[in-house]
């Protein structure tokens, strides 16, 4: 048998493009599943923090953040998820390629574990994004304390989430476990409906 397997996005058949919720003018937020992203857990080996930092800098022209921040590199960004732990995120190295690349370049400095299939990534953008997230996220997103590049791992409506702010729209990327994507979408769209939301087709 050599029929190729087709990838199924976590929100296939669930995130239906179109305008939903209150009103029909400009939506309060837009929602988009980001598919085919490379998402990889990077965990520093003991005592290798500094060497890892240098390896990441030279391999990806990226800075490993010491705190819960998202720092973009050339093709790979790193978001801090815990002491000595990061998620590497890449739009260009999807489908397992990022894990392969990181494993090769960080050998001996970090343990690398592909999470690209274990997570669903949703981008929420628009003037009401903070109001939508406030209905579940117990974290202050006020621009004075949470700005582009700020990141956090927390819990929304009983579901774990890692998020970071992308820009000042504001836009946020939300990373949730794949098996919970449908439940998360239910919370997200229920919460966004008050302000009107538009689902745009999935891309990376």
């Amino acid at each position, binding site marked *: *048998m*050599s*029929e*190729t*397997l*087709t*990838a*199924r*996005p*976590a929100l*296939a*058949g669930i995130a239906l493009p179109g305008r939903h*919720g*209150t009103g029909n003018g400009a939506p309060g937020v837009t929602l988009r599943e980001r598919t085919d992203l490379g998402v990889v*857990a990077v*965990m*520093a*080996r*003991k*005592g290798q923090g500094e060497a890892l930092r240098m390896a990441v800098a030279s391999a990806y022209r990226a800075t490993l953040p010491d705190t819960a921040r998202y720092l973009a590199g050339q093709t790979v960004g790193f978001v801090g998820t815990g002491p000595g*732990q990061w998620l590497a995120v890449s739009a260009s190295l999807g489908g*397992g390629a990022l894990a392969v690349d990181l494993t090769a370049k960080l050998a001996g400095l*970090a*343990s690398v*574990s*592909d*999470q*690209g*299939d*274990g*997570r669903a990534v949703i981008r929420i953008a628009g003037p009401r994004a903070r109001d939508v997230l*406030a*209905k*579940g*996220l*117990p*974290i*202050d997103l*006020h621009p*004075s304390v949470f700005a582009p590049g700020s990141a956090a791992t927390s819990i929304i*409506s*009983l*579901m774990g989430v890692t998020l970071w702010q992308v820009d000042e729209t504001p836009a946020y990327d939300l990373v949730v*476990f*794949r*098996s*919970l*994507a*449908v*439940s*998360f979408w*239910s*919370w997200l769209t*229920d*919460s966004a*409906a*008050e302000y009107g939301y538009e689902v745009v087709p999935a891309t990376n």
Partner: protein
Amino acid sequence: MTIGTPTDQPSRLAFGGLIDRRLPLRFRFDDLELTGYAGDTLASALIANDVKLVGRSFKYHRPRGILTAGSEEPNALVELRAGPRREPNTRATTIELYDGLAADSQNRWPSLRHDLLAVNQLAAPFLGAGFYYKTFMWPAAFWEKVYEPAIRRAAGLGRAATAADPDPYEKAFAFCDVLVIGGGPAGLAAALAAGRAGARVILCDEDFLAGGRLNAERRGVGDKPAYAWAAEAVAELAAMPDVTLMPRTTVYGVYDGGTYAAIERVGDHLPVPAPHTPRQRNWKIVAKRTVLAAGAIERPIVFGGNDRPGVMLAGAVRTYLNRFAAAPGRRAVVFANNDEAAATTADLAAAGVVVAAVVDTRRDVPAATREAAKAAGALLVAEGRIVEAKGGRRGVRSALIRNRDGRDMHLACDLIAVSGGWSPTIQLTSHLGAKPMWDEARAAQLPGALPPGMAVAGAAAGDFGLGSCLAEGHAAGADAAEALGHDRSSGAAPVADDEPAGLAPYWHVKDSAGKAFVDFQNDVSVSDVALAVRDGFRIAEHLKRYTTLGMATDQGKTGNTAGMAVLAEATARPVAEVGMTTFRPPYVPVAIGAFAGHHRGKAFRPTRLAPSHAWAAERGAVFVETGNWLRAQWYPEAGETDWLESVTREVKGTRERVGVCDVSTLGKIDVQGPDAGTFLDRVYANTFSTLPVGKARYGLMLREDGFVLDDGTTARLGEEHYFMTTTTANAVKVMQHLEYCHQVIWPDLDVQMVSVTEQWAQYAIAGPKARAVVAALLDPSQDVSNEAFPYLAAGPVTVCGGVAGRLYRLSFSGELAYEIGVPARYGDALIRAIMTAGAPHGIVPYGTEALGVMRIEKGHPAGNELNGQTTAHDLGFGKLLSKKKDFIGRFMAARPALTDPGRTTLVGVKPVEPGARLRGGAHFVPRDATVSSENDQGYLTSVAFSPELGHWIGLGFLANGPERYGEVIRAADPLRSADVMVEVCAPCFIDPEGARLRV
């Protein structure tokens, strides 16, 4: 006379008030079709329409009217809306009028005016304090069958809706520098000062119109009318980008760390919530500083008949007159122990209400009150008291007034405006456990120790004057902002005079005629308090429980202070000594729906969907929740009528040909690093550092107390890379345990771990034809023969044209079996490919039930056996415990009691009568023994019908189990009247040598 101008609202004043006369609103109360205005509450609209009788009381069904103008209302409780939206015990004083509002009175039958249940009043002498305790002592069975239903029919507070609430509720989080609780003078001043200084401010106000008493009094702030100043303050605050105004929002709880709970009534003022908006939103607010400006609640003086419709708190009278332009009566008597008498008399007179008398309990009545009485043409009765409010169900008709010489006079009136002074609204200051302090000068409880970060301003702090409220609020807001690093703003504090208070404590009229009520909602009277004292209940907490004083939905907001004062009098002690009951959240009733928020119905908790979910749903699988996962339980086929039929077919299909099951839900943990093997040796009872790369091994994990925590198989994928699996149920717990072991116990180990449960879609393919199916799925040149890939082999493969996957030769079913894993995005495609590849071999998908049957046939312990009370020895795994190394649980597992052969250990059982059915949970007793706790020797944990053996089988724990194979014992299940003779056997029923695994 300004009342009764051309309008259909006979008691609406001709002008004034903060209502919108251009927006008339129709509403219904019982059978009355009425009209009010935008800006009205249901209470103010009823008053404008001369409706005085609003409800019947809880116990005696006495006619009751409106006492207050706020959320403290004990009497005017109605059922709002109808059908599934019907909401009982809603306070008419807080219901914002909307067009089409429908409300019904409660606690009456058949109608409010002719309530037959009012015969309870005749029984009043028997329904006093402690009545329940004394009367319904015996026999106990009578409680359920006789007393309780009868009492419930006669008493109770409204009827809950019988259908599910159709409206959504939400939760939300907010953060701020300064939370201001209350939108009256102190709160507005605080918010302005903090907001102007640049702080992030949230102002929560219970009312739909901010301003508090500024909207209710004919006062001024600076050179403006008070209500106008309030409106300007609100406008200024609304224009500040970092100030959030939250009207219709009650802060109801204080929690540690500056956390506050608040309920926002988003859609309660609408017939139904606007589309896509909730009815209510339950906020958790985290504030660095808080200004409590919750004001104060006026309290009555207790006198005979004080619960009749038409007896109203003086402050509420002024609210209805000034804010709502509604006159609560035509002919009033004012009864007070403080200077509220003056303002109330003046406001009544200004509205055209006749003030028949001002009854002032004070010996020396201040000039202001004397002048107000004179100007209103009212008789002033100094050092007087009202002995009884007389009247009928429509309300007060006259007041029996006694002067200082004991001479009585009867004055006709339909309104008694009463003020016993004010009690600061301090409930929130006590939610973390601090006790309030009794202040003798103010005759009120004042805040004790405050929650960290909280300041109290204005009337809530016991400073009732308007000028003090504004100044204190301003200072508290500025202080809070400054403490957080903001410069104090240059804005000046608003200015107003302090009105005099002149309170001379006077709690109740001792020579009252008729029943005098302390707690209206629970019908607790002065005589009940006296009875409680006679029965020996002498402190506040005891009084509360004996009489139910303060235990109703209003939590005694108006009645508690007077209740304590009456108790103090009855026991001849100062009020400070009788204590105060404890304040706990919530400050106001909060609907259960608001606590649930999004989490109701299918969203009760999040659901995790396995990679094959869409495919399984298309096939009509029956799903079961295991943990948060939704797993296929079985896959019914056309013509099957019974789950057992489907499951039996699935088991047979698997054992005879080949079956496939989604096992992705098992916990999967990547364990990596140079010390990964060492780490696994310490967390598993058996050894993993010696496991060759490319092999998997069963592992048993103990808790430190020596009992079994979890089990699973772990494969070694590289020198420094292990892939651990856990049971579905324990995945999160095991991850937490491993991280504890690493971070707390052995931080020196160079090991890293991360959950990959979600990363891999994994399918078990089991049965004699499994190899053929797996071979068809793998890309060519990958050898899965028994020689190349033997039992317990593990390694990388490529699947279906290059997808990087993993293959494990593992078997839970006891058959030749593989588990094949691919990245989860391919999980849906892979199950479809497996079904295609398996079709020529007659593949059958099987669910968790068939999985369970096959593991019971094989004697593999699962959740029912790994129940937290079993040891490795109990499970027959004693030989797995390594003697060569330390590991979690090793020392404690070796304790004699945990390895005692007399312990109950895992056995199999089969019924002596082949057709008999076994039931999980049955207890084992010796064959000829009676079924009793003394003879209990163990219990049956798991049962299944074995299609291969053609009878029921079971696993269980039996004392001295392994020594008793062949013995017949009883599996007794008295709860389900089952008692089956079973033969004890080894727990593995099929292929005990494991020959099928290794072909």
